[in-house]
């Protein structure tokens, strides 16, 4: 397990690096993509020992419960309201779900700090 403070500072550095090098419209997708790539790998790791998922619902339950708590070891409790900070975890969820065969759009909103709501919209290919 890694230390949360170290991860948080790393994440802050990543965000400030991106925002120094490009403007906001470009940074958010880059940050989201980094999260996507990380989520993709994490999905690979954290489903290694589970049995095969039965269906979409099975996958969604897994992501919301086991996956999230394995990754963050808790509920997210200290994300900044700034949406810059939410692009990464949004990408992370999208990447994990994509790797499990569900393509979706993930958005986040913070209504009452420190609670944060991630909204996952599944995209149907038909």
């Amino acid at each position: 397990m890694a230390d949360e403070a170290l991860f948080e500072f790393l994440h802050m550095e990543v965000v400030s690096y991106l925002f120094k090098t490009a403007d906001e419209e470009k940074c958010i997708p880059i940050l989201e993509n980094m999260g996507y790539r990380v989520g993709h790998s994490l999905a690979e790791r954290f489903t290694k020992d589970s049995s095969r998922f039965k269906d979409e619902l099975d996958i969604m339950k897994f992501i919301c419960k086991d996956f999230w708590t394995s990754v963050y070891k808790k509920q997210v409790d200290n994300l900044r309201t700034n949406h810059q900070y939410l692009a990464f975890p949004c990408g992370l969820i999208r990447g994990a779900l994509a790797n499990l065969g569900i393509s979706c759009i993930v958005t986040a909103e913070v209504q009452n700090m420190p609670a944060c709501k991630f909204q996952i919209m599944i995209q149907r290919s038909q």
Partner: protein
Amino acid sequence: MSRQAGRGTEAKKVSAELFTLTYGALVAQLIKDYESDEEVNKQLDKMGYNIGVRLIEDFLARSSVGRCHDFRETADVIAKVGFKMFLGITPTVANWSPAGDEFSLIVDNNPLTEFVELPDGHQNLNYSNLLSGVLRGSLEMVQMEVDVTFLQDALKGDNTTEIRLKFIRRLEDALPAGEE
């Protein structure tokens, strides 16, 4: 950006993979953004420095470590308390210079490189260079100027990973945090 008030001294954790993979995504991004490995190394060092100057506060708040009397004591604290607290590993302190102003941290099982295979043509990349910056930045906040370099890197086929720390001087006044 200051630490949140009310944060306890207990260690909060995230998964080791989250940290390792996020760092990997960062290095992969920097390689896209910069022409040369040297520039990537420099950028990683800079980001590490910024992390170090903040991380030291956490370190001092959470550990009961007091002021170090000499560089040998500092070396021990870095390896046994610092690395242990933040990365969960304890590097070996070795290869002291006769004057006692230089030593090496021998890092086995570097968590940053757990899954990494360097692509061809990046022999000059110091993949874990963030660590150099973190050490430099955090020591500067406790009034020590040090020089940090990677002497060996297991990622490049060396037998081990060896980070060299050289004491330069004691700083009189605390420097302001942050570096551009």
